[in-house]
């Protein structure tokens, strides 16, 4: 089981290059690593979706 797990992480490691130099977004005074920027953008996306998407069962309650 855990042999399969380590082979799965090996596949992930081949897809995502983890040993290279870190990449940054740099514009004037603004400097952020790509990984941190991705996490922040994901949080904003999840926040917007959590407000915009309808909650299951809400329509039924409104119709009652």
């Amino acid at each position, binding site marked *: 089981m*855990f*042999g399969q*797990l*380590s082979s799965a992480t090996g596949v992930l490691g081949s897809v995502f290059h983890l040993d290279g130099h870190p990449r940054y977004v740099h514009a004037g005074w603004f400097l952020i690593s790509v990984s941190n920027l991705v*996490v922040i953008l*994901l*949080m904003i996306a*999840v*926040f917007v*979706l*959590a*407000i915009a*998407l309808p*909650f299951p*069962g*809400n329509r039924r*309650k409104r119709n009652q």
Partner: protein
Amino acid sequence: MSSPDVPVDPTWTGRVREAAVSTLPPEQLLPDTQPAYVSSWIYIFGVLTLSAFVVVLVSGAVIALAGPAWWHGSSLGHFVNSAHLWSTELFFFFMVVHLWGKFFTAAWRGRRALTWITGAVAFLVSIGAAFTGYLTQQNFDSQWIGTQAKDGLNAAGVGAFFNVLNYGQMLLWHVLLLPFVVALLTGLHVLLVRRRGICPPLPIEEDTK
């Protein structure tokens, strides 16, 4: 102040019980219904944060029991160590979305200031808990973080009692002091949410033309 007609319990345990039950009645502590406005995805991020925190604590307890040779040297150890890391990542992810949701609905309204404050302080202490975790990984990454952090913390004047290059001290902050404070604040935060109720959305203002 007690009424002369109501007998006061002579024992301190009884008085504590009466105070606890009157402050937080069982139906308020474990409610079976919630207001309609809670039916929104934005309201699930508090409990998601709490769930991730439970996984952090359980996976942390397992790697503490088994020790560094296990979490660095075996497949199962790597797995549980990674579960500890990724549950921490999710803990912060969910907590930040929860924080934004509460900030933009001004969730400190309706005598909920202490709920807001306990949540904010728990967030700050959690950053310290995660930081000491990165310091105790026992790899080059933790050495780099420690040597980078020491100058800033020494300049802030806290190096005498919070020395990031002292592995034993950082490990004890990480596995005992900070998780205890985070758990205490989280428990208080949840009890306050039960006491004051979940904050309703902001009212829609009518157009004033």
